[in-house]
């Protein structure tokens, strides 16, 4: 064995040991600071975990891009997902007077809120873009109360880790981490472009997360459950997205 290859061997060994040690340390660090997404298993886990961890370190508090009023889309496009259920039609016929948002889980005071209860909370608005994973996008003004207001009203308990949210049909459910739940851009949306939120766009109530792709902005928001254990929900992957093959974290 000549000097050069011995040096290479030693260097390679040291590098491999450092790499393995680094990975073990990174794993402990990531678990401690919540940098591992619920869908971190399987072949797509490493990439997904790297993405989520980097975004959490980099963008936990950054604000979504906002646009001038002149850039609001003249003809926004709505994917048709209107729930055809009788229940929804009845609620719509009543002008959504009987629409309720239930807030429960690891909270001090579970809530049942009507739309007018929500309207009496501090309102905020944002002109942000909604981008679909398919590639299209539009800009709109979204008006509502930040989810953090609702959660503060309910009093989230310290062990809370995720906020699970359901549409009016129970199969449609999503979840976000506390960083996104408490972020001022995360809006319980009641209005769009100075009017009530139209049904095709998720009305009467939609959770808007402008810092994630459109599929996280669940339409027909009906039920919010704060939890300390995301594994208890569905297949334990954080939302219906990974169950259907899509990433749980959609900030990319």
């Amino acid at each position, binding site marked *: 064995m000549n000097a050069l290859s011995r040096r290479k061997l030693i260097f390679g060994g040291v590098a491999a040991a450092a790499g393995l040690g680094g990975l073990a340390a990174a794993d402990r660090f990531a678990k401690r600071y919540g940098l591992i997404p619920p869908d971190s298993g399987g072949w797509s886990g490493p*990439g*997904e975990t790297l993405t989520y961890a980097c975004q959490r370190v980099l963008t936990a508090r950054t604000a979504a891009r906002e646009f001038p009023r002149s850039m609001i889309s003249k003809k926004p496009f709505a994917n048709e997902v209107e729930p055809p259920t009788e229940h929804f039609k009845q609620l719509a016929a009543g002008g959504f007077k009987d629409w309720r948002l239930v807030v429960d889980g690891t909270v001090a005071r579970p809530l049942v809120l009507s739309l007018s209860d929500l309207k009496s909370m501090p309102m905020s608005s944002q002109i942000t*873009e909604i*981008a679909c994973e*398919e*590639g*299209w*996008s*539009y800009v709109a003004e979204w008006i509502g109360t930040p989810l953090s207001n609702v959660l503060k009203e309910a009093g989230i308990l310290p062990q809370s880790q995720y906020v699970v949210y359901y549409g009016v049909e129970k199969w449609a459910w999503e979840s976000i981490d506390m960083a996104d739940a408490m972020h001022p851009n995360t809006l319980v949306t009641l209005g769009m472009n100075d009017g009530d939120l139209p049904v095709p766009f998720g009305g009467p109530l939609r959770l808007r997360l402008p810092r994630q792709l459109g599929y996280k902005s669940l339409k027909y928001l009906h039920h919010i459950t704060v939890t300390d254990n995301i594994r208890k929900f569905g297949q334990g992957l954080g939302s219906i997205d990974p169950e259907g093959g899509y990433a749980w974290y959609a900030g*990319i």
Partner: protein
Amino acid sequence: MRRHAALVRVTHWLTFVAFVALLISGCEIVISHPRFYWGEEGNVNTRPLIVLPIPASRDTVPTHYHYVMPDQNGWSRYLHFEAAWVAVLTGLVYFVYGFFSGHFRRRLLPSRQDWTWRAYRGRLMKYLRGSWSEPGEGFSYNVLQQSAYLVVIFILFPLIIWTGLAMSPSFTSAFPATAALLGGRQSARTIHFFVSCLLLLFLLVHITMVSLSGFRSRMGAMIVGTSRKSKEVE
């Protein structure tokens, strides 16, 4: 005789695997909305810049084909971003190595006397006459190869990473200029598509040239690092 350093060989094949995965998953993703726009927003209600003449994998996209392709976006997106990580991390290692080992300076930067149109034209004419490998080119690159590699390494790859990040609603919340400098999210998507076309073109030309100039010898050089003299002119 040694042709390629171990680090160059390893990063070359990792990049190849990642690029193929990105290409396949990218094709799957793009068919869900085969329309391209310029500016910030773009959807079926706005005027497209270009429409690819293919059916879409979503029935909300109007095409003339009366046919909806199978939708494979889920695993394609997982694969796209995982492969992107492999490509970016590999590229990072290669970049650091390239700068500090002198790889870029000694192997990829054309030598002073080649900084002329005459040098480019000279080698191009030889290619056109069917001379795929000139003496010495089994061990060093000619000016056209060097220029192609420099464009891919320093322009196309950085641009495709930039335009990819500019489509991330979370990344752009931290770095809004990544999208704004390109003219908006849809511009970034359109550039991303065309840069990927250029990279695919590079891949096809690259494989063709490797085949024409001696597939076994060139592949051997990039796999085991050494190139033995063969019948072809070295």
